[in-house]
């Protein structure tokens, strides 16, 4: 048995029955990384982990995990795959990292991402692109592409990602794994290096729904260090794993099945709906009338916040500091300009400029403020439907994974691959992507399920039922 190809809950059973050891699991993961990561390039940094046999037994979840390179780990380098943060070692653990360490998790390494989580393909990285394990000349999606690819390639048992506009769900969909964006406020953002503060949320990327619930159990909860985390009780999400959707009412937003949706993706999603119908759920076509404004609203809100969040990378305290050869303005301004010129990639610069523009005096009302208002309308659309429906269902992304390099020079078409995912971030609701089939080219397709705030249990219940009655999640790549 190849241990690294098992799920975490299977491994925990094996550990419980003394059929394996944490050392053996970690060893199998390390071997896989050695074998395939030169092709996949999921990791940007590996920690030299050794399992301490004395503490291994007392650890509840000694499972090797990949961490997206935007979460602070005490005394380890964290860079957001950006040149500007090269050499930055956080003097503290992110709350999620603290919780993982406490649970006994073995942090294997940091996974690649689009720089500062800005992108949908994990091509915008100062370390180079990550490749999709299912087809190495395709992108793994993004921005948590490294985490999704690591799990798909069995280079990690599970992984942590962050989702600002689809950055967990879209790569999960592209890589054939399960990705959950929890409700905004469910998981602490303390120590997550911000892209867009009002949209960012940390979540699990796993091989199946059971692991997703297990990992959410570890990381969820109120944190007094994060004012946006919500002080609501955290249920045991394993209890939600019920093979039963009888009587559930699920809406199918018609705006998610329009032009641009690839027929193969549409067919797979319709088949998934059929499967759930057979298990007793009822479906109805519904409307989210403001969907078409989602991408515009998202890109105004996210870039505005990002322009402010990323202003601190100025060469003063940490990361790189660059000075031009010749003085241009003043030593200080020159340092700012040159550091940011050298440190940031093209997509990050593009978004900083967009956001700065939206917030500028004279444009604020027309862009940022208008964006806020439309955001409320989008949220209202969901609130209305959730008063009647238990969940909404549709595709995670309009297409399967595209070729590396295909969309690099066409930002707008790249932005559109998030068209079905941004609304969940704008409205703060939880959403999950689960594998629901393959294209003819054998690229994975993802099914997205959304529910009202703090209804992660509903997502798990529907996703678990679907998973129990299909075997997409059991198919994996062998690299």
């Amino acid at each position, binding site marked *: 048995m190849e241990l690294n190809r098992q799920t975490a809950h299977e491994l925990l059973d094996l550990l419980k029955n003394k059929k394996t050891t944490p050392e053996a699991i970690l060893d199998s993961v390390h071997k896989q990384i050695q074998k395939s990561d030169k092709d996949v390039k999921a990791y940007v940094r590996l920690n030299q982990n050794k399992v301490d046999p004395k503490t291994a037994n007392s650890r509840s979840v000694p499972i090797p995990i990949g961490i997206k390179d935007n979460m602070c780990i005490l005394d380890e380098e964290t860079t957001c795959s950006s040149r500007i943060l090269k050499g930055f070692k956080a003097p503290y653990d992110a709350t999620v990292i603290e919780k993982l360490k406490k649970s006994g998790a073995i942090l294997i390494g940091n996974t690649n991402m689009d720089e500062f989580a800005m992108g949908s393909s994990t091509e915008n990285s100062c370390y180079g692109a990550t490749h999709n394990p299912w087809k190495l000349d395709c992108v793994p999606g993004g921005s948590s592409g490294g985490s999704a690819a690591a799990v798909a390639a069995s280079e990690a048992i599970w992984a942590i990602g962050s989702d600002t506009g689809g950055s967990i769900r879209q790569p999960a969909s592209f890589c054939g794994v399960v990705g959950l964006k929890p409700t905004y406020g469910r998981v602490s953002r303390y120590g997550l290096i911000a892209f867009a503060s009002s949209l960012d949320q940390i979540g699990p990327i796993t091989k199946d729904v059971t692991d997703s619930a297990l990992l959410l159990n570890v990381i969820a909860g109120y944190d007094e260090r994060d004012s946006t985390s919500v002080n609501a009780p955290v249920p045991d999400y394993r209890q939600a794993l019920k093979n039963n959707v009888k009587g559930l009412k699920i809406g199918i937003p018609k705006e998610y099945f329009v032009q641009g949706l690839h027929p193969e993706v549409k067919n797979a999603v319709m088949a998934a709906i059929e499967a759930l119908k057979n298990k007793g759920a009822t479906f109805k076509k519904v409307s989210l009338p403001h969907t078409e404004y989602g991408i515009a609203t998202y890109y105004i809100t996210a870039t505005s916040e990002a322009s402010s969040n990323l202003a601190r990378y100025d060469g*003063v305290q940490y990361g790189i500091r660059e000075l031009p050869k010749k003085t241009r303005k003043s030593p*200080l301004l020159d340092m700012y300009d040159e550091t940011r010129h050298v440190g940031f990639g093209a997509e990050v610069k593009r978004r900083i400029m967009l956001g700065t523009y939206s917030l500028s005096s004279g444009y*604020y009302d027309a862009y940022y403020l208008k964006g806020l208002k439309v955001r409320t309308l989008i949220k209202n659309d969901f609130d209305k439907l959730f008063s009647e429906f238990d969940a909404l269902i549709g595709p995670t992304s309009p297409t399967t994974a595209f070729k590396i390099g295909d969309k690099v020079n066409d930002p707008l078409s790249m932005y559109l691959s998030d068209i079905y995912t941004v609304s969940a971030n704008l409205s703060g609701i939880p959403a999950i992507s689960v594998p629901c089939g393959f294209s003819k080219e054998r690229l994975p397709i993802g099914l997205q399920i959304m529910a009202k705030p703090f209804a992660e249990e509903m997502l798990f219940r529907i996703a678990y039922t679907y998973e129990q009655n299909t075997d997409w999640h059991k198919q994996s790549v062998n690299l």
Partner: protein
Amino acid sequence: MTIAAKQKYETVIGLEVHLQLNTATKIFCGCANKFGEAPNTLTCPVCLGLPGSLPVVNAKALEYAMKVGLALNCKVNPFVKFDRKNYFYPDCPKAYQISQFDLPICSNGYLMIETEEGEAKEIRINRAHLEEDAGKLIHDDKNNCSLVDYNRTGTPLMEIVTEPDLRSAQEAYNYLQNLKLTLQYLNVSDCDMEKGSLRCDANISIRPMGAIKLGTKTELKNMNSFKAVKAGLEHEIHRHMAALESGQAIIQETRLWDETRAMTFAMRSKEEAHDYRYFPEPDLVPFMMEGAAIETTRKSLPELPAKKRERLMEQYRVSAYDANILIQDPALADFFEECSKHYKDTKTICNWINGPLMKELNTRKTRLADIGLRPEDFTVLMHKVNEGILSNLAAKDILRFMIDTQRSVDTIIEEKGLAQVSDDSTLEKLVQELIKEHHNIAEQIRNGKESAIGFLVGQAMRKSQGKANPKKIGGLIKKLLT
């Protein structure tokens, strides 16, 4: 400039005060809020603005802000919202300052001041909002570099902005004095301009008397003491008037007060005007304060100086002059009230507080709270003088010994032998000795020159080391010589 020219113009001043709140910890993290520690020792990921860190509002800072607002008669907004003010500067580690933009916690208040003519005047407060302070830059010319100390970064600040209601430098000075006194009563800030815990910028313009439209304003900064505010404003007003009188235009700009050269000069032109790109701080979700919070705070406010002054005058029949001195330190006023329980004559208490006691405090550069003087001991002095046991002079000496040694009045009298001598036979002997020694003077008194009695009394006091009862001595001299 002629007086006529001065009378042609009306001065319009608005003040912006930055007040450091003396909460135990900073506004968005748990670091200590202290002055004078070694650089960068009071920091954490949050106030250093490290990647991934998040702010959390200090409830005490909110409470202090409410107190300030309520004391300044403001409307307190229960909906608390913060905004980001974006700008690049090394003293601002996040490259934005968390502040309040469109919804300040306090607005529409006022503070009463006294004008130069002694009339009461209301100075409207436009707003008072909460924000975080920046770090401190130190320019090291020797090594040609700049150093940053982040200890001050994230300490809670309140910005208190008046309407343009002040009409002279003196009014501005009076406003600041009153504001400082009010804030000291609340015990929310050290209000020390020299240490920077109270900083003041001013907007100044002048306009022809009777005009409605405001003139072009300049903003004046770098006034580091109350006196500097007055001097800087006076200078700037004069500069405006001189410019208009000679037909020059005022340029809207920021100017700095140079204390040593006693003049103002332009800081930078407005072409570098910042666009701060304010937007709601997404890391701090706006929230409603509990309904009772504002009322609870209102009830917890101490009696404020204006009220106290009024009450002291009414309840104890204290003069305006005395009341003004007493309210300068709430501890002093409390002390007075305690004393009045032990001694009936409040005028005498005032005289003792405003005279000898203030003198002792001033020479020691200390505050009442620090000298451990109890009202019951202090009033014993007045009783003893009244009963003729102590002379005024001796009582003042005893006060000094009391503060120095923390001993009781009686112990000191005994140790120093300072009790007043009123015993007739002892005093008569003393007077007879004096008559012998100064027979010329005695002769003059016998001849009706009463003014010479004072000389002999003085000699008696000297000989007795101040212990002789001067009234009795005077009586005895008269009895024996006339």
